[in-house]
């Protein structure tokens, strides 16, 4: 359970959102500029809100009233963005192992192998990341984020370099693993197909505000009615 009550101004943009994300897989859907990436950065601890709180399974990650703000590492939160941001001086295997400092060498190697297998990149561990295609780099970035087995996984349009079939196949492998390891996932996307294909809880963001939150079918129906209403009004 992720509880969020945030107020953050970024220039002229104002994100103000309060919600409880109870589903293991929530899609934050909205057009570009709706505040999806801002929200995910606040959840990850990469940015601080002006006010508000974030609690994951009852533990506070941020609470401005108490002056509490956990740094990204201790939050046990992982994030993958559209830009894979792989460390260019490290191999694929070293990238995936970067967040596994607490494991011994053998366990680390096993985990790297397991993660690369999960994302369908078993043939890549020795590669220099500069040699990877866009899709391969996104798979490796995903493996790196999954490796520490964080409690919260934040995905900000992470499959943009994969075609539809590859993206669907990856999601199909990923979702059971996340469920098994009890990782709550928040996927931000502006693509309605992504948002509604996963049969998840959908949070619809518009202009920095939460416009709707609920099962995908319900949010889709309300959004469809709104669009039809706008068209009818001309």
């Amino acid at each position, binding site marked *: 359970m992720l509880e969020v009550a945030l107020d953050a101004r970024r220039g002229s943009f104002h994100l103000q959102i309060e919600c409880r994300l109870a589903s293991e897989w929530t899609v934050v859907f909205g057009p570009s500029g709706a505040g999806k990436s801002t929200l995910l950065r606040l959840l*990850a601890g990469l940015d601080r809100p002006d006010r508000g709180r974030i609690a994951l399974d009852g533990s506070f990650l941020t609470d401005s009233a108490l002056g509490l703000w956990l740094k*990204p590492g201790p939050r046990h939160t*992982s994030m993958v963005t559209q830009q894979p941001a792989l460390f260019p*001086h490290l191999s694929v295997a070293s990238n995936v192992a970067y967040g596994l400092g607490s494991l011994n060498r053998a366990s680390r190697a096993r985990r790297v192998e397991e993660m690369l297998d999960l994302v369908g990149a078993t043939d890549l561990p020795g590669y220099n990341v500069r040699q990877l295609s866009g899709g391969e780099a996104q798979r490796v970035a995903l493996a*790196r984020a999954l490796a*520490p087995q964080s409690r919260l996984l934040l995905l900000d349009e992470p499959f943009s370099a994969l075609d539809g079939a590859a993206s669907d196949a990856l999601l199909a492998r990923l979702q059971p693993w996340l469920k098994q390891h009890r990782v709550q996932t928040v996927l931000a996307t502006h693509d309605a197909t992504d948002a509604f294909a996963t049969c998840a809880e959908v949070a619809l963001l518009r202009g920095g505000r939460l416009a709707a939150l609920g099962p995908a079918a319900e949010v889709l129906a309300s959004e469809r009615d709104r669009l039809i209403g706008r068209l009818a009004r001309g």
Partner: protein
Amino acid sequence: MDWQALALTLKLATVTTAILLVIAVPLAAWLVLGRGRWLAVLEALAALPLLLPPTVLGFFLLVLLGPRTAVGRGITAFLGHPLAFSFSGLVVGSVIYSLPFAVQPLVAGFAAVEPALVDAARLLGAGPSRLVLSLLVPLARRSLLAAAVLSFLHTMGEFGVVLMLGGDIPGATRTLSIVLYNQVENFDYAAANRTAAILLGLSVAALAAIYAGGRTRGGARA
């Protein structure tokens, strides 16, 4: 040829460069990754020796480290001898004088590292020291090289601070720049030419060797 002065100059440049890198790497990382308005004041202080005349800096340090100040008396009591007119005093002066030459290239190099990479490392649990050692330093190694070269060569040619703070004690504070000054003062231009040629040759050789190394490694990366 004053071999003793040459050895002392090389020793001073080496020790100063090593100390500067230890200080400048975390300082530059702090300036780049830190937050707060007062960081601008810190950056200005780190750059101040660029604008301060070396003789003025040497004079301030001579006064500060001398017996008239509490700092100077404290250091003398701790070390058993005053820092002024000693090799250790020269090292202190050189580190302060050359600080901007180590910090500025590192700040530029660290600032050029993509913020997304820093975010990724922080999300994976990297604390400040790991962030610097496993990410910023490897990705900004050419800046580290530039900082080392500039610090070394700047210290090699130092004159004003050395003369004010160290004087001219053979084997302790007499560097090649002081030797060159003495030779010119005595109208011994032949010896002065040799000393100047050595300083120039060392500078060119150090620059060429280190940049050639950087170029080779850069080629291997591509």
